[in-house]
């Protein structure tokens, strides 16, 4: 008997059918991956299973009994626990990891009224042991990395006697190394007979874990693949069109050098390295979290200083003191985590697509200081057409868009005016395969600028870049002799 069976499930938001006659079954100890582009209905299905919303039609059973959770808490007590992509809300900065593990105990009055440090630690230790994890109990939750936070969330789920764990984009903010730790954890859960419903855009995740892949498109089941999964076929099913050559043709002829680093050190004690990025060239830097990718981009954008070395921009010395100077010199950056680094919150002036694009260009577009001309709207609509952003008008809120389309808007911001060098930090975070193709095409379309991309996903790096360089311990690893002229292909 299947652990969870959902049949004929439908749900609509207003007149938009988010899910139509959808079905899903999960066995105990099985890892089922749910795939679909943004808007395919994945999150609606997850919300139904986790008790956030109720389906309009259909029935769901858990262990053969009808299952219709009233709330996420209700779902959790029945053994269905969801771990969300954003793990910031798992614990509270200022409180310890132990407190984060026991949060639910506090709320549900399972803890005694008076807490001693020792009893908290003892209880927290029990929760961790149950999950088989090792975490520093006395550390401030705020100091934990994304992977550790995820472990806290999973440990908490397990202490709740979870039978089905729903992981929503768990690796979106993890480095490769952290992701492989998560893989081990998921395999451990599977061995214990816990079912996992795994939602991810990353085929690497699914290849490593999934027993079965269920694909949604436009709110309907469009296919299912069993192990061994043919991921090319799965992705084609998911996006509903043939996959254009996943890897671009590596080009070899580029223009003049735009960015040149000589003897650069990110930190005083790290090894020096050279780097040249030429006009029209797309270079990707990959490495684990903390290897120095973001640091490299930050120092080119005036947010950090190089400890040592020389930077040339178009052959002239370049040392920006802040982003203002970098942008004025033609070096622009789209930071990682677009919500934090690029977007204005919903409901606040500047949340529209047009305003998101215009923010750095206001002085040029509105030289008088008054914003009466509507130029940003025109530029926004141009961008919508050029990048295929799914929006009716540039005055729509950027928050009405899916992750992939939001990222297109961020890219459009830096394409609205010519630049010399485009720096992109993790540009494919939370971006589905379809949108990723569009973004890659947009990035590669410019022959007049240099592009430097930081990503922890080497597969992504090879999809977008002419040249992929690894970074480790804050220094570029010069595999091909001769550095920037070598082609570095590595098998993945």
């Amino acid at each position, binding site marked *: 008997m299947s652990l969870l069976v959902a049949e004929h499930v439908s749900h609509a938001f207003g007149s938009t059918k988010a899910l139509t006659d959808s079905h899903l079954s999960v066995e105990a100890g099985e890892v089922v991956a749910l795939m679909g582009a943004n808007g395919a209905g994945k999150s609606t299905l997850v919300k139904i299973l986790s008790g956030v919303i109720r389906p309009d039609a259909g029935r769901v059973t858990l262990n053969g009994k009808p299952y219709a959770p009233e709330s996420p808490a209700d779902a959790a007590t029945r053994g269905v626990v969801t771990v969300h992509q954003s793990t910031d809300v798992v614990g509270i900065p200022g409180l310890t990891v132990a407190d984060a593990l026991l949060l639910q105990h506090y709320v549900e009055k399972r803890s005694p009224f008076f807490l001693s440090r020792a009893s908290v630690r003892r209880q927290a230790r029990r929760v961790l042991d149950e999950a088989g994890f090792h975490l520093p109990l006395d550390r401030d939750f705020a100091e934990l990395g994304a992977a550790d936070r995820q472990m806290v969330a999973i440990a908490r789920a397990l202490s709740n006697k979870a039978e089905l764990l729903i992981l929503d984009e768990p690796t979106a903010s993890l480095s490769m190394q952290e992701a492989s730790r998560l893989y081990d954890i998921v395999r451990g859960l599977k061995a214990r007979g816990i079912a996992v419903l795994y939602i991810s855009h990353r085929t690497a995740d699914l290849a490593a874990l999934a027993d079965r892949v269920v694909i949604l498109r436009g709110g309907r089941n469009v296919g299912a693949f069993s192990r061994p999964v043919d991921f090319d076929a799965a992705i084609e099913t998911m996006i509903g069109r043939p996959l254009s050559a996943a890897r671009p043709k590596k080009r070899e002829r580029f223009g003049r050098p735009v960015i040149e680093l000589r003897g650069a050190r990110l930190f005083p004690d790290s090894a020096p390295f050279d780097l040249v990025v030429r006009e029209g060239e797309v270079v990707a830097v990959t490495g684990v979290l903390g290897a120095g990718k973001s640091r490299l981009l930050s120092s080119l954008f005036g947010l950090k200083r190089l400890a040592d070395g020389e930077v040339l921009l178009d052959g002239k010395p370049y040392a920006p003191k802040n982003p203002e100077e970098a942008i004025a010199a033609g070096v622009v950056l789209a930071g990682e985590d677009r919500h934090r680094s690029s977007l204005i919150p919903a409901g606040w002036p500047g949340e529209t697509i047009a305003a998101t694009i215009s923010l750095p260009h206001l002085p040029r577009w509105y030289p008088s200081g008054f914003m009466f001309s509507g130029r940003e709207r025109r530029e926004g609509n141009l961008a919508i057409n050029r990048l295929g952003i799914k929006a009716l008008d540039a005055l729509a809120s950027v928050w009405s*868009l899916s992750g992939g389309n939001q990222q297109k808007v961020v890219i459009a911001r830096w394409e609205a005016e010519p630049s010399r060098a485009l720096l992109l930090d993790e540009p494919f975070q939370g971006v589905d395969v379809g949108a990723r193709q569009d973004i890659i095409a947009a990035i590669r379309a410019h022959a007049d600028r240099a592009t430097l991309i930081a990503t922890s996903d080497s597969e992504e790096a090879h999809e977008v870049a002419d040249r992929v360089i690894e970074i480790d311990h804050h220094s570029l690893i010069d595999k091909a002799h001769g550095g920037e002229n070598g082609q570095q292909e590595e098998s993945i």
Partner: protein
Amino acid sequence: MSPVTENAHGETPRHTDVVKDVVRRGAVFILLALLVVGFSWTQPAFANINNLMSILQAVSVVAIIGTGVTVTLAIGGFDLSVGAVAASAVMAASYAMIVLGLNAYQTVPVVLAFGALVGLVNAFLIVRLQVPDLLATLSMMFLLMGLQLIPTAGRSISVGLILPDGSTASGSYDPMFLMIGRSSLFGLVPLAVVLMLLTAVTLYILTERTRLGRLLYATGGNELATRLAGANTARIKTFAYVLSGVLAALGGVIVAARVGRGDVSSGASLLMDSVAASLIGFAVLGLRRPNVLGTVIGAVFVGVLLNGLTMLNAPYYTQDFIKGAVLVGALALTYGVSRAKS
């Protein structure tokens, strides 16, 4: 990943939603109209043009200071020192004329510069030293409340003031200065109301229709993103606090010119009233954010309500309660009614 993905497009608003939306956006205006009609009906004297002008005059100071608070709210900060700045400005103006013997043309710039200086200090604390805005401006409020007492040894300032050293101050109020608070344009529109309208229009255009305004809100919405887009957020925040200080000082100038003396306790309620006006403004047009138009409407709303109730013989001591009730209602409207969407 985003919860709105599935219902982003193509949703046709239902009839009830339209009604709800109109109520949400227009609630303050509808209530204001009802108040005016109601008061005019029960008290015909209410609708007298002179009474309406006196309402506007009464709220002008709160509205001007409130627009300054609004700008600090827009950058994601908060200026709690505005009441103290206004009160100090009253004392400073009186001191400048009565003790230092300055005329109106010297006094007004000096007082406004004083407001700008306080704004700069606030900005220094908040932007440079990274003191949280509430704490920085709260301490500044304390400091100013004390500071204003020192030059006169705690006495109020009026003509013939006896100074701490025993001598008598020789200056007097410049009649030109008093005109700011007491004269009217065409014998109808008080100068203070004209100043309020000028401030309101200027700041409305500044915040809603200019590049700088966009950057002010952008800083308040996501400071990191604004900085990464190349804006100098430190300068933008400094501007907001300086503007807030200047507007508070302008409010103080109007109070001093109306009262004609430097009263130690003047401006006691200005902070609460102007903050309340800004917060009531969140509900205007259902914007749920600080906005200049809303602040001015908020101030007028409270003024109309208090004036009308006073005409209906509501005792003066109920005034604070009424203001509080309006604020609570406005915030409930702002945050409560429209939540159904999500």
